[in-house]
């Protein structure tokens, strides 16, 4: 086969792959928007209305309890996980750890990243049973934080490694301490760190398996840190399994809300990252 034919074939393969990715994405979003958007347009108030007492049976009221449940779990979990992730990632850099140590830790983090979320759910459930406690928001936060931790740490670690080495030399060169130098490196890596934060949040808010065992289920508004609650992904599963057609249609509406939240977050992170990138050495070129 001649070189130019190979090139043309490769071009076709690459374009097909790109079309496939965009096509699948559009299909998912399209179905969610068409079906969920329709339900939401007909009655937008379901997002901000607490569920009625017979919500799962008759679809009375809305699913505010799950929207809040998701935010109350994933918000604090992301904050906790982010602090742990940035600290770990900083510790893995050459100023604090040897290459061998950080390679080993990164391997474990990769394994953790690949661990199915339901394993985390079962792990925290074991803790709940051992503590004689019951499923609640609190344990949901812990489970999601554990789930997010390897994702955020790997993102942050990669971002810090990609930050220019000269930032270190420059800061040390004017007499910065290790901590001061690292602060500047984290700043130089800000776009990547933000990407990790958003990916962690997006994965956390979309995960059902982790919270299934740890937060429990509830058809009431979240009552407190140590009470059971429902999140959007778990609600969507329950709604989709309902005998009532109206409840089933709400599943699309809830999926629509979830998709919009995740898309919105990703766009926000792009915006923020772009802002920081202006300051990053070489970022504007």
């Amino acid at each position, binding site marked *: 086969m001649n070189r130019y034919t190979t090139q043309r074939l490769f071009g076709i393969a690459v374009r097909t792959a790109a079309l496939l990715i965009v096509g699948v994405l559009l299909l998912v979003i399209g179905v969610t928007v068409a079906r969920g958007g329709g339900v939401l347009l007909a009655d937008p108030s379901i997002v901000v209305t607490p569920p009625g007492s017979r919500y799962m049976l008759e679809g009375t009221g809305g699913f505010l309890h799950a929207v809040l449940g998701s935010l109350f779990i994933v918000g604090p979990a992301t904050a906790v996980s982010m602090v742990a992730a940035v600290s770990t990632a900083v510790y893995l850099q050459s100023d604090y750890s040897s290459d061998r140590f950080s390679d080993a830790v990164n391997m474990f983090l990769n394994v953790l990243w690949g661990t199915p979320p339901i394993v985390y759910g079962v792990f925290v459930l074991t803790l709940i049973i051992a503590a004689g406690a019951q499923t609640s928001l609190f344990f949901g936060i812990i489970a999601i934080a554990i789930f997010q931790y390897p994702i955020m740490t790997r993102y942050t670690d990669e971002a810090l490694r990609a930050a220019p080495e000269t930032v*270190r030399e*420059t800061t040390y*060169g*004017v*007499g910065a301490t290790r901590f001061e130098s690292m602060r500047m490196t984290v700043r130089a890596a*800000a776009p990547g760190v933000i990407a990790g934060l958003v990916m962690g949040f997006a994965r956390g808010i979309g995960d059902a398996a982790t919270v299934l065992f740890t937060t429990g289920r509830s058809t009431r508004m979240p009552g407190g840190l140590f009470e059971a609650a429902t999140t959007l992904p778990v609600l969507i599963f329950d709604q989709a399994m309902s005998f009532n057609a109206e409840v089933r249609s709400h599943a699309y509406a809830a999926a629509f809300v979830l998709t919009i939240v995740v898309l919105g977050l990703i766009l926000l992170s792009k915006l923020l990252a772009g802002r920081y990138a*202006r300051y*990053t*050495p070489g970022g504007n070129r």
Partner: protein
Amino acid sequence: MTEIPLTTDQLAVTYTGDREIEAVKGVSIDFPANTLTTIIGPSGCGKSTLLKSLNRLHDIQENVGIEGDVLLSGDSVYNTDVPAPEIRKRIGYVPQTPTALPVSIYENVAYGLRIHGEYESKADLDEKVETYLRKVNLWDEVSDRLGAPGAELSTGQIQRLCVARSLAVEPDVLLCDEVTSALDPVSAESVEKTLKTLKSEYTLILVTHSMAQARRLADEVVFLYLGEVVESNDVRSFFEDPQEERTKTFIGGSTPVDRDDTPTEPADTPPTPDGGDGSTIGDDKR
């Protein structure tokens, strides 16, 4: 007698990674005050290694062993309880790659002042930022956009910004590691101009592998080859009356010492003020 703020005493630097490499072998040099000393030599001869060992910058690397000592105004740099950041504040370092910290132009200059707490008020800080930007001839170019990201400046401007940032903490000595090698000729010229104006006030040590640059800028020249000082002298004597055979060969341009360097002058041509290899591109990194 000339004041000698910085001296090395049998300084040796060894990389102890996969294989052991003695990059600097027992070097003893005096760096006189208010003088620009250039350290020249072919790529890989240990110039940057020597420079970084002067202010303990190797402490941030793994697998580097240091023997001997560096004396800053008579005080040991290595055998001391003084924390390394305090030493690096007194012996500043400007890296080879022009690097704007990921903050505004203003904050780039203010960085050292802030971390060392060396300002009394916002007005004082403003004044200092202006002073040092003026010192590197950058004020007129950036005074109307101090809040803009430092990274948006041209590479030549960024390198002058780096010098301003280093000067702002008032170091006794400033180490410059091939500071023009990543720059285009016009930017390199502006940085050289800045160094020229600074050398009467500061003790500057410049690593370069461009002999033309050494001729243009230096008061003193140290020729390093394979980690050893071959010859060190004032610039005139060094280039016009070299004592060592290896120096003559290096200056002359026949290249048994370094095949990467591409001097343009034949060996028997007497040096001209602006002659030399003219090369500004090189890499002394390990």
